[in-house]
């Protein structure tokens, strides 16, 4: 039977008494107000997975950027004497087929993954958000035209494009950032455009008009601040996605070129030896790092979404 719980003034959602605890029965408002940031953090901190994710991301960043100063290994030249050596006191996770120390290799690869991930996500979200916001504000024919461009880009299989482009020139870090950003920006563009369209019709935007305010005020003071949460959350997911894209490229052999590397490239070259058996340290550390980093960013994104939802902030 179609007996669904429903929206009702006295329904499940409103069992919580109408008065927020900060407002007592007498209508007196107690306690010092906390800042928006503080309250957002409280909601974020309630999500234990996100805290774990945040901890892991901090760990990975320290590992990749501070690690080489503590655990220093030669990463510029091939060390043939260490060819595929097993984990030992000298090489904690052994070495690869070129004699590079795996732990040191993971740090170098991680630097590239994080740099590309953050930069590509930043560029894609910045451009995508502006594009989407403009499209949503102007609306009408302009909006229809701009969004058809987005549809067209989204309809191209990105791996195919990246493979072709990566073939044409040997990409360095900067080129990869550009490539990933170019393929990724339509996602935030669509999202922000949708958000702008709904925010534009909100009553508080109408309230600005009733007070005689201009459109620019409505957009800058009301639409934008309310869309920022969406954009930041999207950016967090974009970092994770960019790392996945870079890893896929690396795995296909179009990642960061030697003597540098990235985690996907490490996986790819390690696979050549996995059939011979026994060389687990060539793929598992890199693979697990990719998974753990991506999952951590996704957890953070989830919790940020809640943190930006004002209604979830401590009532």
């Amino acid at each position, binding site marked *: 039977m179609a007996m669904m719980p429903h929206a*009702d003034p006295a329904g499940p959602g409103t069992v919580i008494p109408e008065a927020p605890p900060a407002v007592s*029965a007498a209508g007196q408002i107690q306690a010092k107000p906390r800042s928006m940031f503080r309250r957002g953090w409280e909601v974020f901190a309630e999500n234990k997975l996100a805290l774990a994710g945040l901890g892991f991301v901090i760990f990975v960043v320290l590992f990749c950027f501070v690690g080489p100063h503590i655990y220093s290994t030669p990463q510029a030249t091939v060390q043939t004497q260490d060819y595929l050596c097993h984990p030992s006191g000298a090489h904690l996770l052994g070495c690869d087929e070129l004699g590079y120390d795996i732990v040191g290799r993971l740090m170098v690869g991680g630097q590239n993954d994080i740099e590309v991930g953050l930069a590509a996500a930043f560029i894609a979200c910045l451009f995508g958000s502006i594009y989407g916001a403009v499209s949503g504000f102007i609306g009408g024919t302009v909006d229809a035209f701009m969004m058809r461009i987005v549809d067209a880009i989204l309809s191209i299989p990105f791996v195919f494009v990246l493979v072709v482009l990566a073939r044409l020139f040997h990409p360095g870090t900067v080129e990869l950032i550009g490539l990933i950003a170019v393929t990724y920006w339509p996602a935030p563009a669509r999202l922000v455009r949708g958000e702008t369209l709904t925010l534009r019709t909100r009553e508080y935007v109408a309230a600005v008009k009733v007070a005689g305010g201009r459109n620019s005020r409505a957009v800058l003071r009301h639409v934008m601040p309310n869309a920022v949460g969406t954009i930041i959350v999207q950016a967090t997911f974009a970092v994770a996605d960019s790392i996945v894209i870079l890893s896929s490229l690396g795995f296909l052999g179009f990642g960061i070129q030697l003597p540098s590397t990235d985690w996907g490239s490490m996986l790819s070259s390690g696979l050549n030896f996995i059939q011979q058996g026994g060389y687990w340290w060539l793929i598992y550390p890199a693979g697990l790092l990719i998974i753990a980093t991506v999952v951590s960013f996704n957890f953070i994104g989830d919790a940020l979404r809640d943190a930006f939802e004002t209604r979830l902030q401590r009532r």
Partner: protein
Amino acid sequence: MAPLLEVNDLRTQIKLREGVVHAVDGVSFQLEPGETLGIVGESGCGKTMTALSIMNLLPTGGHIAGGSIKLNGQDLTSLSDEQMRNIRGNEIGMIFQDPLTSLNPTMTVGRQIAEAVSLHRDVSKEQAMDRAVEVLDLVGIPRVRERIKEYPHQFSGGMRQRVMIAMALACEPKLLIADEPTTALDVTIQKQILELIDDLRRRLGMAVILVTHDLGVIAGRADRVAVMYAGKISETTDTETLFERPRHPYTEALFQALPDKAAEAGERLYSIPGLPPDLVNPPTGCRFAARCRYAADRCREEEPQLLGEVAGHEFRCFYPVGPTERNEAGRLTAYNEAPTEAPIAGPGIGDVLLEVKHLVKDYPVTKGAVLQRRVGLLSAVADVNFAIRSGETFGLVGESGCGKSTIGKLVVGLEKPSGGSIDFEGKDLGKSTAREYRRERRNIQLMFQDSYASLDPRMRAGTLLREPLVIQHIGSKKAQLKRVDEMLDRVGLPRSAADRYPHEFSGGQRQRLGFARALMLQPELIVADEPVSALDVSIQAQVLNMMKSLQREFGLTYLFISHDLGVVRYLSDKIGVMYLGKLVEVGPAEEVYLRPAHPYTKGLLDSAPVADPETEKAKVSEGVRGELPSAIHPPSGCRFRTRCPLAQAICAEVEPPMRRFPGEGHLAACHFPLQTPVGDAVAPASSALPD
């Protein structure tokens, strides 16, 4: 006879992250076969949770923590999910508030009901469909055989609710639980649906639990009433006794907060101070003590039991109200302290402030996503004329879709009229330049219905209140902040509220905030669009009283838009009744209310439930039949003729002109009015103005 349903000491809890909500806390009642029990209370009092507990349909985190629910002697709380499924829809039917979300939009109406039947009965597809036709016919759906093949969106709101009732009745349940069945519907449709439920109860011998916040709905339909407050039943007895001699102070206060009665007596509304208690940590002692005007020390320490002096009338109070207890005079001083109000006086008061002439608003109806072809015109407002004098309140009433909110938007400038003019202080607003227009915004402000949606969630209350001043470049920052503080004082909010975000306020407080923002620019006219329709009775009274007193203080003029006749009557000096884009009657509030000239006004008044069992049961008129026709193809001649009991051939041919009726400025557009007209047809432009 053994009771059909016996609820004993029911306790339902809901786990939330801030703690456990004791949503239902020791509720007991009985229901005989064929009886209607009304459960009434404000939002959050646990009435819906009680209903959902019986059905075992509690939301996530909710569970029954104690007590028993016996249906025909069988304890429902001990049943397995499988056994409960067998009871649900079979022995107990339930109707929800919103019929659109309760129906599956991808299934035809007939199949949905047939599905409900085949879940519980061992029948063939054809037999199930036959049963669907039968029950749909029972609930008064016309042309059932054709309509069972239609989808829910092809039905109107009232018809959808009928379908929901049909579905609930498909397996002939012994008990029907109706949870706010008519809250989302217009009064005219509400009356039809309530009558249908009543009629079906009698014919099928069902017991009904009617859950509602509306005392008027309870008055005419329930045999017995249970008043709930903060998860407990505070008073229960038969309907007549409850309305005549309420014993619990909360029940008494609820009645005094109803605008109908106050309007009749010309009194100020009694508003229950404060807010219902937090059910995570309920207060010790009587739960109503903090808001009760008679509370003594004992009430705050010890919890009163549900006891009665007479059999069948129980209440939870140490110091019950009523003729036998405490001295009458002492009680009433707390309530009638408002002095008799002298009429507002001042310069310019009484002059015409706003005049709406031949106002027309059409919306194009388009088809297609990219190339939007225009396929028709929706006539939202059609040639409306009225005038509002400075210092008065003009109430605009009508069913949803009649164009009253559109008029509000046109007046505040959120929409541009398709024709006609809106004159403010004699100047046509449509002719002003952009710069003038922005300045004129100062004089006309809007108070929104949904204060939650109209306050930017990312701004603190202080910033929100200041914003209109910033936009209009009024005063220095210091002066602006001072004005924010003053305004918070005026609307009864503490100054510390300025640092708070909108979601930290309760519904009533947010509405005060919305009102404060509308007042910031010191406007002359405030358009209030359903400002109290989302609020509970007690909170509604607080907001209405505030609006009334600030009107006097600032010499404000209101255009008050509402579907609630009681509220409009309480606040308004003049009333305009709208139907399908047309103003059908306008006149002094009491005149229109007591001696309506237009059959629609009369029908609307008869449909509105009154919180008085005698009046309700004595009603013979059937209100307004049928449903609102489409505004894309409005009926020719008089737009009301399709639902009018008095309609004749001329009504379809000639549009009735506005004619004068007894009472200053009382006009109505009808060929066969209920009062004798005193004048001939008047030219519409001046129609709203007395000579």
